[in-house]
């Protein structure tokens, strides 16, 4: 048996609907769990339930924009310094164990930036900021003293002489607790290179102090009692447990190649997002209902079919959001809802055209096909115009003279996707549904 073309199309649509439902619906509804398909396409694992990714403004968190102080770096090396800066910060965030964080870079003229988003509470942001933002440059140095003028005068401190032992020689840093008083400290284990340097350093400085400097500040200055061969050192100072943990993370991730400072910071409480989402869903539902009532009231049976397409539009869009995945922000949700209002646009253009063709005395089948063909010109031009602005907002090539704010991009992405999917549902889906399910009346008698 061979299916007619519109029926073939319906089969394709039905398959898409099933696939989308499979992606969109939760794994378990009540006691019914969905069938298990161990399908993997690229990085997409369909056996797992795909999460709908939520932006920072919904789940709450911290966004910081850091600017890198590149003055001391050669112009040609700045980009690579920025990349290494990003890697180091990424490692710190990972080692600290905050999941779902993002670290991005942006270059604006002579300004090099790192944008960090971490889902932490406002109460923990100060700590997070110091974790990310401190250079954490570790050095071992020898304090220099000027002897007093007379034998009874105390020697005066005259600064540090750096040694060749630095954070680069470090293998791992760990939080330790001193045996007597349980005070937190940080233990340093050196690599092969560092072990030799450390051994040499301690050998040459027995009964003298060695300073451990962090970002130029002495954290601790122990006196060497004997040559140390094991390649281990301790930093003790007045740390809290949290500080000791941050420090080990920073040391393990490596020092930042350039110092950074905060130029913008945004904390969003998670409760705000949950409330906004609930309101947006209600608003979206009511809006959708109004659109459906309007379409059915205005176009009758055709309106019903357009409404079916509209619901499918919502379904396909959600499925695509999960697959890509689109990080859903509040402006993104606004963009999605807006696109629902726009999705019926092409249907309205087509249906109005259909009415005209009927008025011109054509049979309904001819009118239907003509309407789809003739409305295409204006649909194409109008939607291209929207896609042009969508692309300017989304700034896909990361042009530095345009904005690349997450909120704006989120909105633009949902808008562009909305247009593309709505062209598919508004034209392909509606057209084939109409071909199969719609029967118009021919005007009798025909005006000829």
């Amino acid at each position, binding site marked *: 048996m061979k299916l007619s073309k519109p029926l073939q199309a319906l089969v394709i649509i039905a398959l898409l609907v099933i696939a989308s439902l499979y992606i969109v619906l939760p794994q378990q509804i009540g006691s019914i769990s969905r069938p298990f398909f161990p399908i993997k396409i690229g990085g997409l694992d369909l056996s797992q339930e795909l999460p709908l990714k939520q932006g920072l403004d919904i789940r709450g968190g911290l966004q910081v924009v850091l600017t890198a102080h590149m003055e001391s770096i050669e112009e040609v090396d700045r980009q690579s310094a920025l990349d290494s800066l990003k890697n180091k910060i990424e490692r710190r965030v990972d080692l600290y164990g905050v999941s779902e964080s993002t670290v991005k870079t942006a270059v604006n003229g002579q300004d090099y930036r790192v944008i960090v988003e971490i889902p932490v509470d406002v109460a923990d942001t100060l700590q997070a900021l110091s974790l990310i933002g401190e250079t954490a440059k570790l050095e071992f140095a020898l304090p220099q003293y000027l002897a007093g003028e007379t034998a009874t005068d105390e020697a005066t401190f005259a600064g540090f002489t750096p040694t060749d032992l630095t954070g680069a020689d470090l293998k791992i840093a760990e939080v330790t607790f001193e045996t007597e008083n349980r005070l937190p400290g940080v233990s340093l284990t050196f690599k092969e290179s560092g072990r030799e340097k450390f051994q040499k350093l301690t050998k040459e400085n027995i009964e003298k102090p060695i300073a451990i400097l962090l970002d130029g500040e002495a954290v601790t200055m122990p006196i060497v009692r004997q040559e140390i061969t094991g390649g281990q050192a301790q930093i003790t100072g007045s740390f809290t447990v949290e500080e000791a943990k941050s420090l080990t993370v920073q040391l393990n991730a490596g020092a930042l190649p350039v110092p950074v400072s905060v130029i913008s*910071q945004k904390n969003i*409480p998670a409760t705000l997002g949950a409330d906004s989402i609930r309101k947006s869903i209600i608003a979206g539902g009511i809006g959708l209902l109004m659109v459906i009532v309007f379409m059915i009231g205005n176009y009758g049976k055709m309106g019903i079919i357009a409404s079916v397409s509209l619901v499918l539009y919502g379904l396909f869009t959600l499925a695509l959001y999960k697959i890509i995945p689109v990080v859903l922000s509040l402006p993104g949700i606004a963009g999605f809802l807006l696109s629902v209002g726009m999705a019926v646009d092409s249907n309205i253009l087509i249906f109005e055209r259909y009415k005209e063709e009927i008025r011109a005395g054509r049979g309904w089948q001819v009118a239907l096909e003509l309407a789809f063909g003739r409305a295409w010109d204006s649909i194409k031009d109008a939607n291209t115009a929207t896609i042009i602005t969508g692309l300017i907002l989304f700034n896909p090539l990361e042009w530095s003279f345009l904005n690349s704010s997450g909120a704006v991009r989120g909105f633009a992405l949902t808008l562009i996707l909305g247009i593309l999917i709505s062209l598919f549902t508004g034209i392909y889906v509606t057209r084939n549904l109409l071909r199969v399910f719609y029967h118009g009346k021919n005007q009798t008698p025909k005006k000829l």
Partner: protein
Amino acid sequence: MNWMKLTPIYFLISALVIIPGLFSLARYGLKLSIEFTGGTRLTLTQVQSDSETILAAFKDYSPNVENRSDTSITLKMKTIDQPLAQKQIESLKEENSEITLTDFETIGPALGQETLKKTLNALLLASVLLLAYISFAFKQIKYGVCAVLAMFHDTAVLLGSFSLLGHFAGIEVDLLFVTAVLTILSFSVHDTIVVYDRIRELNKKTKGVTYIELINRAVTETMARSLNNSLTIIFMLLAMFLLGGQSTKYFSLALLIGTITGTYSSTFTAAPLLVAWEKLPFGKK
């Protein structure tokens, strides 16, 4: 119907809406958010003291109360970093033992300037590209120019309304507003193209009618669809404005104003502009 006979009236209506807005823009400007000006916004909860005490704690940063409820207060001030802000909050702990910082946002002044510049770039780029695209799609530059002029008409209405809203209701213009403006550019053009497309089509089919008659017919034939097209969007936006979350409320309002003026302008500005173009010395060809 001879819609174009009333061209001066349409332009008069537009002027009546736009002129107060432009006046307000010139006089009061827009109330820019810290995203453009730089600065800090923070929210404190479990506040017992009156607003004056809180303001006094931040007096070095010229603070303003933006929102005050029983126990929470939102302040806007010059750029301050979080450790410093936290210090000031500590000093308030004597009177407000439970006081907590729930929301903190700070933007360096330089970043604000940059955002403003990038926004203008985006507007400029959008105008040029849309002008080029429409001129190309309709094969005549007058369509591009008139569509873009109608687009500026809508932008002026939107900016004017928000200047007035900013002055009288304290509503701020933020990055999302800019997004709304850009979206409205495309909506405006979207609607205009529906009308122009019909003019293009009639132009091919019918011979021996004047250009004005052609435009009149196109406007009559597309009136219903322009209105219906916009109505579905307006339904959605109205629901979002009235029922949606606080953070996108004014974004929805901006889109709503833009969609309404966009619908008006496609029929009553973009089409009459074509007629006006014809009357220009170089227009008639």
